[in-house]
C-alpha cells in the first residue's frame, strides 16, 4: 500500500477537482468582492475600480451602524433563546434510552428535508392576522366569551382583536430560532453524549442536588458544545437574509437585507461588497475569540 500522504503526485491528482472548484467558485469571487469593496460606483451603478475607503466609511454611518447593531441584537437574542430551548432538548436526547436517541435526533434534523423558503412561508401561514395561531386564539376567545354570556356577562370582552404577530422583529426572532435550533442542539448533543456520566453521579454521590450538578458539573463539562453551538447560531443569524425578508417589517431589516439591497435595487455593488467584508471580519473576530477561549481553558478539559 502506498501512503497517499507521502505520494505527492497521487495526492495532487485527487485534490485537483476540489481545489479547482474552490478556486473558481469561492476564492476568485471572494477576491473580486474584496476588490469591489474599495471601488467607486459609477452613475449607472457600474463598478469603477479604485482604491477608496469611502464604502467602509459609509458603512460606519449612523444609519448603517444602527442596522448592524440591530442585527447583532437580533442574532444575540436568537442565540440566547436557542440555548434556552436547545440545552434541555439536547439533554433530553443525550439521556434518553438508547433506542430512542436516533429517532429523536431524526426529528431534530427533519426540517432540513424541506426547503427553507417553504418552511418560512409556513410561519407566515401560522402568524399572519388570519393565520392558524390567531384562528386558534379566536376560537378559545369565543368559547370564553360564550361562557361569560351564559353566566350573565355578555359582551364583557368585546369582539376578538387578532394579534399582530407578523412583519415585526419578534416574528423574525421566532423564525430564526426555529431555523437555527438544530445547529445548537446537534453539537451540544454530541458533547453531552460523550460526557462520562460518572461525573454527574459523582456529584450526586457527594451530596449535590440535581440543579447544583447541572450548574457546577454538567455545564462546565458541556462548554465546548455550548460554545460551538451558540457561535454557529450567532454567525448564521447575523448574516441571515431570507427570514427577516419574509417575516420582518420595515424596522426589522438586518445586514443581510442591506447587502442584498445594494446588489439588487440600489445597484451599489462596491458598498454591498464593503458591507459583506465587514460581516466577514466580524465572523472572524468571533471565531478568533472562541479559539482564544479554547486555548486558554485547554488545561481544564474544555
Amino acid at each position, binding site marked *: 500500500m502506498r501512503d497517499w500522504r507521502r505520494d505527492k503526485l497521487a495526492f495532487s491528482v485527487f485534490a485537483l477537482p476540489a481545489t479547482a472548484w474552490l478556486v473558481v467558485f469561492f476564492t476568485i469571487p471572494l477576491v473580486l468582492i474584496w476588490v469591489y469593496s474599495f471601488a467607486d460606483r459609477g452613475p449607472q451603478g457600474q463598478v469603477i475600480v479604485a482604491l477608496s475607503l469611502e464604502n467602509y466609511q459609509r458603512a460606519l454611518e449612523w444609519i448603517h451602524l444602527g442596522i448592524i447593531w440591530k442585527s447583532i441584537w437580533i442574532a444575540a437574542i436568537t442565540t440566547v433563546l436557542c440555548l434556552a430551548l436547545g440545552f434541555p432538548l439536547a439533554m433530553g436526547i443525550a439521556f434518553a434510552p438508547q433506542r430512542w436517541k436516533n429517532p429523536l435526533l431524526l426529528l431534530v434534523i427533519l426540517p432540513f428535508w424541506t426547503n427553507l423558503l417553504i418552511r418560512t412561508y409556513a410561519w407566515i401561514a401560522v402568524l399572519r392576522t388570519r393565520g392558524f395561531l390567531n384562528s386558534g386564539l379566536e376560537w378559545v376567545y369565543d368559547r370564553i366569551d360564550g361562557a361569560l354570556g351564559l353566566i350573565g356577562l355578555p359582551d364583557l370582552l368585546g369582539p376578538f382583536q387578532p394579534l399582530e404577530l407578523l412583519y415585526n422583529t419578534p416574528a423574525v426572532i421566532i423564525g430564526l430560532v426555529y431555523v437555527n435550533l438544530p445547529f445548537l442542539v446537534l453539537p451540544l448533543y454530541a458533547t453531552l453524549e460523550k460526557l*462520562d456520566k*460518572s*461525573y454527574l*453521579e*459523582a*456529584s*450526586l*454521590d*457527594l*451530596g*449535590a*442536588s440535581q440543579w*447544583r450538578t447541572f450548574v*457546577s*458539573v454538567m455545564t*462546565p*463539562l458541556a462548554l465546548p458544545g455550548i460554545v460551538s453551538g451558540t457561535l454557529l447560531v450567532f454567525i448564521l443569524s447575523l448574516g441571515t437574509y431570507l427570514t427577516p425578508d419574509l417575516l420582518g417589517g420595515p424596522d426589522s431589516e438586518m445586514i443581510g437585507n442591506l447587502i442584498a439591497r445594494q446588489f439588487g435595487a440600489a445597484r451599489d455593488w462596491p458598498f454591498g461588497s464593503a458591507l459583506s467584508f465587514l460581516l466577514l471580519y466580524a465572523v472572524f473576530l468571533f471565531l478568533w475569540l472562541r479559539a482564544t477561549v479554547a486555548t486558554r481553558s485547554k*488545561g*481544564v*478539559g*474544555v
Partner: protein
Amino acid sequence: MDNPKPIISIRNVTKRFGSVVAVDDACLDIAEGEFFALLGPSGCGKTTLLRMLAGFEHPSEGDILIGGQDMSDVDPNKRPVNMVFQSYAVFPHMSVARNVGYGLRVTGVPAAEIKERVGEALALVKLAGYEERMPTQLSGGQRQRVALARALVKRPKVLLLDEPLSALDAKLREAMQLELVRLQQSVGITFVIVTHDQDEALSMADRIAVMDSGQVRQVAPPAELYEFPNSRFVADFIGKMNLFAGRVAGAADGRVLIEIQGMDRIAVPYGDQARGEIGVAVRPEKIRLAPTPPTDGEIGLRGRVREVAYYGDESHVFLETAAGVITANRPNAARTTTPAVALGDELWASWEPADTLVLTE
C-alpha cells in the same frame, strides 16, 4: 465478625435489566468497621449491587438498609455512603482542592472548615501540597487518591469502591492494596470494595462475598474461603485447584469413601452426608512430589511430568496421571539453576486426606 448490628443489610435483593438478571436474590449483612469485598468474574453483578447501595440503581425486589434505615426512598445525594468510581470521576475542570472540597461546598459547610478538612483529607492520602494542581497534571494513581480523599472528606458511614485498583500497574496496585487497608484501619469507616481480582480480595478484606451470575455463592473470611470453599465454583475461582469428578461409594466413621476414575478408592474425612456424584479437590501447594510412593495414610498418584512452569519463587509442575493432569506447586527453596524436576520424570504426587475437599455443590 459477628457484629450484632450490621451497617448494611441487603435483603433478598434482585435487580433485573429487561430480561437480564444482574443481581439474583442477594442477602448480605456487612458489619460496622468491616473491610468487605465483593468478588466475582466480570459481569456477575458486583457493580450493580454496589450502585444499588449508592442509590444509582433501584432494586427490582428486596430491601437495602443502611445504618438500620430503609433506603428505597432515599436519593443518592442523601445517603450516608460515598463512592470511589472505577473511572475515578475526578472533575477535570476543578483543582485538586476544589475536587476534594466539592462535597462539603454543596452541603454548605463553612469555608474555613472546608479548608481544614480538605487539608486533612489530602494529608491522609499523601497528597499534601497538591492542592492547586489540575487533574490533567496528575498520574492515574494520584487521581485515584483525589477520588479517595474526596469521598473520605465527607466522613461517610460506608465507603464504596468499584474496582479501585484495576487501572493501576502491578507494583502500584500492590502498594495501594496495603495503603487502602492502612487507611481503612485509621479512619475506621466500613469499606465495601468490588473486585474481580482474588488476590486483591484475599489480601485486603476481612470478609469476602463471592458472586457468580448475580448470585452470592459464599460469604466468608479469606482463609475460610480458600481452605473451605462450599462449591466447585468458589473452589475453582479462588486460587488454583485440582478438581476431580468422584462418586461416593460409602461412609465409615466420619470418612467418606470416594471412587475417582484412574485412582484407588480414597477415604476422606467429611462431617456431612454425601452421596452420588461429587467434586473432589486439592490445592496445588498441598501436593508433594516424590520419586517413591507415599507412606501409609496419604493419598498417592503416579504420573509423568509433562510441563514445568517457573515463577521464580516457585515452580508449577504439571503431572500427567491416570486421573488427569494435576498441578503441584514446589517452592524453589534452594538457590540453584538446576531444576529439581525435569520433563518426563516419573513421580508420585501425594497429599493428606484431610487436605482433600469434598464439594457437593
